[in-house]
């Protein structure tokens, strides 16, 4: 029976209370480290963050019944084994704390029950002032902690970096692919119903989007990787699903809860519902549109509004979908279409969808432009429009999601090898150092899948052994990068 079942909420529902406390803990820990950077361990300035930390730890202990621990594992933070969601609010402190851990090759900190203010002060000061370039940094820090007599705090080393590919099980990937394709199929069903003016049920779509949300929260890379696939037969529908996934990735960064993420996903997935009325010969036209065809295409946001109101009525979800669909071709400065005679404040959903819709359209081979952009070029183009066509803050968040070399970028490395970006680097100062799956060696021979983390420094030379030297237009060479994600 287990084989035919999929897990419901448990895996994807970290204890919200612990997660909230964990978030506060990391934020206070970050503040403590920052304060310790400029003040001595005995300085009064450290009192408040220390007090706050102790109070949060107390709450955590009574909530979990165990001592408090912080673990860092491959760009994720765990507090008392609960994975914390990185959202816009905690973004800065999360990144900083992860970086501090990594610099010291530290995998975890264990705060014993008897942890006190004095130990916390000394620990923070020691940690932040000990030069992480001294090798080996973890051992140095550990010895210093013992020397300082800090007995209520223990640290543990970082586990050896695991290979990216092995982290994601084949089953997870298959489930993700299956969910993706089923969502594509559901979008096509819904569009067909709209075309025939039949009643539309979003129940199945809702379930699938909920699954996508769960997957995204669990393993963003796998699900984002699927958006690089180019499914030509179902292009229109796959584009909708891609927009849904990319929008939810931004929503996740914003810290939307599961329900809001689901709503955003549905709104994004059905943003093009008005295209149900656009003749297929226009939608699939292999050449550029005539003025008349453009006129028809430009009506689809309006048609979407009309259809959805008639078919779905005015419940909150339907209205969010309708608004997202109406706004998705309106630019941040309200240019775009439909042309508005009066000002309106675009919704966040609308602005997110507009952004990711453009990205997926630019990187795909079939919408509006007939030759797709490589991901990095698309992103650069969009950056040039930031503040005009796109919300500049959301644009930044989107670049955070995808990286400066977005997922699916085909790149040439300094070593002469060629590879595909399969995971972005969440650290702002290492945005150009993603994880790359090699596809050729330095002679151009096809190679199977070694994954390189470009942010890793060679301990001997203290420099990066691999860097990206240029990006390559995969489409130009007929290379389907999506295959490296499945």
């Amino acid at each position: 029976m287990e084989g035919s079942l999929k897990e419901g909420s448990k895996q994807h529902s970290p204890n919200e209370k612990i997660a909230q406390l964990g978030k506060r803990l990391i934020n206070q820990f970050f503040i403590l480290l920052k304060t310790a950077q400029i003040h001595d361990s005995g300085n009064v300035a450290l009192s408040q963050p220390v007090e706050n930390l102790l109070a949060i730890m107390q709450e955590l202990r009574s909530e979990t019944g165990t001592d408090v621990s912080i673990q860092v594992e491959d760009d994720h933070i765990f507090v008392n084994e609960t994975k914390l969601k990185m959202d816009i609010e905690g973004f800065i402190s999360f990144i900083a704390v992860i970086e501090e851990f990594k610099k010291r090759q530290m995998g975890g900190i264990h705060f014993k029950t008897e942890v006190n203010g004095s130990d916390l002060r000394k620990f923070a000061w020691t940690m932040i002032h000990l030069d992480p370039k001294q090798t080996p940094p973890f051992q140095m820090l550990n010895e210093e902690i013992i020397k300082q007599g800090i007995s209520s705090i223990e640290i543990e080393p970082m586990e050896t970096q695991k290979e990216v590919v092995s982290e994601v099980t084949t089953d997870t990937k298959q489930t993700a692919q299956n969910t993706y394709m089923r969502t594509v199929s559901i979008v096509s069903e819904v569009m067909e119903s709209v075309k025939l003016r039949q009643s539309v049920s979003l129940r199945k779509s809702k379930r699938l989007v909920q699954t996508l949300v769960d997957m995204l929260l669990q393993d963003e890379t796998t699900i984002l990787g699927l958006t690089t696939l180019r499914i030509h037969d179902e292009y229109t529908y796959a584009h909708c699903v891609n927009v849904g996934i990319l929008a939810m990735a931004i929503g996740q960064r914003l810290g939307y809860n599961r329900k809001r993420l689901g709503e955003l996903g549905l709104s994004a997935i059905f943003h093009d519902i008005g295209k149900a009325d656009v003749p297929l010969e226009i939608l699939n036209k292999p050449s550029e549109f005539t003025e008349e065809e453009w006129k028809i295409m430009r009506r689809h946001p309006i048609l979407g509004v009309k259809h959805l109101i008639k078919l779905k009525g005015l419940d909150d979800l339907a209205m969010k979908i309708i608004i997202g669909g109406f706004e998705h071709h309106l630019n941040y400065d309200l240019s775009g279409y439909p042309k508005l005679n009066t000002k309106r404040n675009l919704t966040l959903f609308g602005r997110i969808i507009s952004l990711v819709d453009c990205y997926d359209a630019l990187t795909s081979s079939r919408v509006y432009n007939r030759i797709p952009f490589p991901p990095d070029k698309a992103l650069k183009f969009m950056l040039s429009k930031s503040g005009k066509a796109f919300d500049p803050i959301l644009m930044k968040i989107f670049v955070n999601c995808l990286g400066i070399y977005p997922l699916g970028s085909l790149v040439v490395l300094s070593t002469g090898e060629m590879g595909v970006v399969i995971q972005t680097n969440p650290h702002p100062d290492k945005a150009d150092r993603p994880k790359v799956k090699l596809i050729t060696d330095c002679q151009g021979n096809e190679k199977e899948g070694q994954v390189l983390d470009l942010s890793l420094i060679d301990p001997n030379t203290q420099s990066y052994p691999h860097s990206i030297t240029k990006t390559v237009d995969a489409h130009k060479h007929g290379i389907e990068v999506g295959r490296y994600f499945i």
Partner: protein
Amino acid sequence: MDLESAEQEGNTDFGTGPHPPQADDLEMDKEEFRSAKELIQFLIKTTRTFKIYLYNNPIHQKFLTEMNAKFDKHLTTYGGLKIQVQQHKLLLGNEVLYENTSRMESLAFRLYIDGIRELSFHEGLEQGEIMSFLEVVGKDSSQTHLDDDMTTLLWEKGFSHITYQVAKDSAQRVEIQAVAPPPGQLTKAFMEEVQAGEEQPQSAALTEIRQGVRATEQDLQNLTYQNVYALTEEDIAKVKHEMQAEEERDLLAEMIQILTAILQIEEDLKNFEEVVRILQDMLDLMIRRGDFYHGRRIIEVFWELQSPEKGLPEKNKEALKTAIDWAGGAERIEKLTAVLNLEEVKDLDHLYAYLILHHKNAIDPLTDLLGSLKNMKPRRILCDAMVELAREETEILTRRLKDRRWYIVRNIVYILSKIGNERVVDDLSALIQHSESQVRKEVLRAFEVLPGSKAKQHLVKFLMDEESSIRILAARSLAQSALGGKVAGTVEHLLQTIEGSKFNNRDLYEKKEIFDALGQVGGNVILPFMRKILKEQVWFKLHKGRHEELKLCAIIALKRVKTPEAVNVLKEGLALKNKNIREACARVIGELETNQG
């Protein structure tokens, strides 16, 4: 999942027949089973109770507390509760905890049909989670939105200590076939790219974009990651603020705004009318919901778009006018009845603003609505709105003064009096003899406030009304009007009333009021009449009481006149034999002197 497929699935994967015993089952603690069964029974009972009692009811609270305690006890003792869901049964291991074959009532069936096959409660379960869980499972399927089922609702709750497993739809398993590059393709690409070839020429349509990219690439060389990547504190604060604002966003207002924007774009009449119809449907919904705020907004849009600066074609403006007519038509107005007759009408603040936006075609149906409303507050608002609507259309209302429903007539009279147009006086005068005193009273009030002397002259007729309260009101009104110089002969009319044959039989209160009115307007003219009353002798004991009443009334009138001459008359009263009258005269003289002093 539909019923059929659920049943089919039930017959294959999750058959309802007996399961072969397993070692675990045999060893299952009987006490654990008993506890779990009791828990489930209580859960069913609690969901039923919650349908009857509101959250703040003590019984609701009692059940919730007890449910919490039972869960706590079971989960602490046994570490958790994992329930298998079958079509009509809930099982713990292989033992039936709950069975109900009624598809309408069975919790098992509801969970099963929505795809849930296993439900687990974990230690640490919180009262809030129990509450949310009960809210989901207790929902009538008829109340559940078409797009929701148990699974989607449970998911949205994001439980930490409740997990579930859902049947997978294996029939739709899809594999993605990614295209592998032809042999040698990667090597070819490598050779070209490592030699850094130029970009291929692109189509004309892309030139601008490509140039944009090149320009951006140059720009980006000067940018640090901070500009394009790192979020500042201000960025974060701004987005957070927007997210908060988004939560409070009025989605219906957004929809109206969007449809308004579309109306300004759609020049083609057919497309335009389609959007107008959507707004009409929305308006219908708003009325059913009693949401006059958004209803008002929709009609405002119909008005606003007709303004010349919007530049809409005439035919489109006509469509908007028709839509306003439609909103004020009998069918639409009648729909207000149900919502305005609710015990608690929520959005009355906007009802007035909504109503006054109608065309005059709404006046007749609104008059009918007046007759259907049970609650005073909405009726008053409706009357006020009709004052605005019918200001220039009083004949529509006066036509309805013959309505056999007196309460409608009374309301119309009220509205006409508020409109305050003199031309309705003749229509109202026909109601002076109306069989219903409430109507007569309203007419009297109308004459009181309507401008011109014609209305005031009619007040005299009410002195003969069969009802005391109306006669009193008439006397007061007359006095007020006479003081304003609007009615001639008031003193004569009041004197005639007092001297009339029926006056003696009126109660003291009315008599006092009439004398008081006379005192207000009479001045020294009435002093001989008052002196006469004061000094009149009574020979029959039988009439002594009534005479004393009249004398006291005369003293009240004299007090009102309060001239030195009137005081002199009162002083004459000090010499009378009747002790009560003497004392009354002395008291009034004292009061008047004090006031003058």
